[in-house]
């Protein structure tokens, strides 16, 4: 198992956001998290790469518990890439500098050494001519692809995506989802929080429905979308697929 979460608990003050979530993700699998706004999808993803310290439970990466309190989170975060809804590119750097910063500072690779690899990523995702642009000179879809490239430049073993198409105009959603399909073809292990039910249905290996800080139901998309067992799931899908 590439990534395993066991009984993850997270509270913000008195707000119990993750009420014991367990999830298994196999190498090369694409897992989609669906659920209503506020159900805890973002928080759960942030717990996986330790952006939020979890209160209780365990996160296993390649069988090793990475959520032990007091353990340095930095080496773990290098192995898990994350892409956010609002892109969060560094506005004072060009696209290519955005992508090269972490390899240079964290992996200690020189600009010259990392540039060919990063350029190849830009070329591959159709941004070869946008490398020297600043984020505010790029469209939303382009910015989000740069954010994905920036995460990939660290050669992560797992990628987390938090509603990465929610801030995009509808005609730009496709170009970003295409990147995900390409990564899936590469065998990348991915967890994706999304409202794009169509994409989850077609591309996911497993879909998890979150409600009120718990995974209410999980399964392969053709089962979960066509024959959900829990009434909560049925109600949510009825609203979402309308």
């Amino acid at each position: 198992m590439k990534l395993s979460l066991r009984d993850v608990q997270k509270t913000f003050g008195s707000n119990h956001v993750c009420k014991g979530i367990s999830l298994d993700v196999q190498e090369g699998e694409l897992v989609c998290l669906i659920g209503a706004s506020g159900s805890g999808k973002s928080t759960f993803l942030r717990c996986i790469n330790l952006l939020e310290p979890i209160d209780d439970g365990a996160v296993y990466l390649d069988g090793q518990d990475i959520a032990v309190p007091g353990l340095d989170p930095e080496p773990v975060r290098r192995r898990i890439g994350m892409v956010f809804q609002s892109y969060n590119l560094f506005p004072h750097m060009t696209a290519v500098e955005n992508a090269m910063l972490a390899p240079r500072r964290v992996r200690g690779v020189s600009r010259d050494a990392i540039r060919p690899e990063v350029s190849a990523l830009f070329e591959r995702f159709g941004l070869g001519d946008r490398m020297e642009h600043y984020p505010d000179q790029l469209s939303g879809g382009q910015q989000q692809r740069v954010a994905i490239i920036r995460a990939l430049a660290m050669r992560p073993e797992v990628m987390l995506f938090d509603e990465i198409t929610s801030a995009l105009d509808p005609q730009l959603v496709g170009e970003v989802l295409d990147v995900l399909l390409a990564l899936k073809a590469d065998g990348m292990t991915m967890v994706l929080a999304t409202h794009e039910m169509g994409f989850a249905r077609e591309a996911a290996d497993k879909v998890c429905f979150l409600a009120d800080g718990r995974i209410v139901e999980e399964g392969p998309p053709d089962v979960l979308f066509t024959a959900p067992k829990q009434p909560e799931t049925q109600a949510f899908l009825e609203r979402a697929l309308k």
Partner: protein
Amino acid sequence: MTIADEGSGKPARTRRQIYEDGLRKRSLMIAGTSTVAVVLAIVLLVPLAPGWAAVKKSFFNWDVFSATFPKLLDAFLIDVMIFAWCAPAIAVLGLLIALARDVRNPALYPLRIFSAAFTDVFRGVPVVLTVYLIGFGIPGLGLPRPWNSPYIWGSLALILTYSAYVAEIFRSGIESIHPSQRAAAESLGLSRRDTMWYVILPQAVRRVVPANMNMLIALQKDVALLSFIGPVEIFRQAGVFKSLYANFTPYVGAAVIFLAITIPATRYADYLMAKQRRDRS
């Protein structure tokens, strides 16, 4: 879009442009008239005041002005010099103090307390008092030359006071950067220090350039406070001339010199501030 030329050779204007030009002409005329009226009133009325002749003689005496102005300019170079070494020191110390507030290492906890106390103390005391206390106090310890120079200790007083303010400006800049930037940097595995240095600080520093410009302008003026502890800079030189000529015009000359620097600088700072507001909206 403008309407195409109608063969007359004159470019046609849109209805909106014609309307706005009319408005602009009207407000220009009103502004011009009222300004002229006010200036005229001042020029005509002030000389009617009973003491005007005396004031004119002792504050706006052309002979005294032209005799002292070049020397005042020379003395102003000392102000410029003091400013020139204080400003970079303030930038560095202010930044260090701003960063010290965020250290996490428990061993460095004293540094956090110290930087908090530092900003409280030096923002709480009038600059002139700090200049007096440090400028007279430390050389009073009986330091040998050149370490008893008022230039050193007066400058230090300015550096400490202004660093306290500049540190607060940097901190507000750092706090104005959205937490999602930090999250993005940390999710890439960047250390806290690299996140600060490569992601947060470059954005924060840019954002507070106008505020720091205003601090520089204030510093330029406060350099004159060093005159109280010895250096014969422009303010003190003007005082010497005042006694010599028994006339206040040298102070007006000094004010003119300060304004020649600070007005363009203030305008520039305002321009930067306005530009930033535009860029961010």
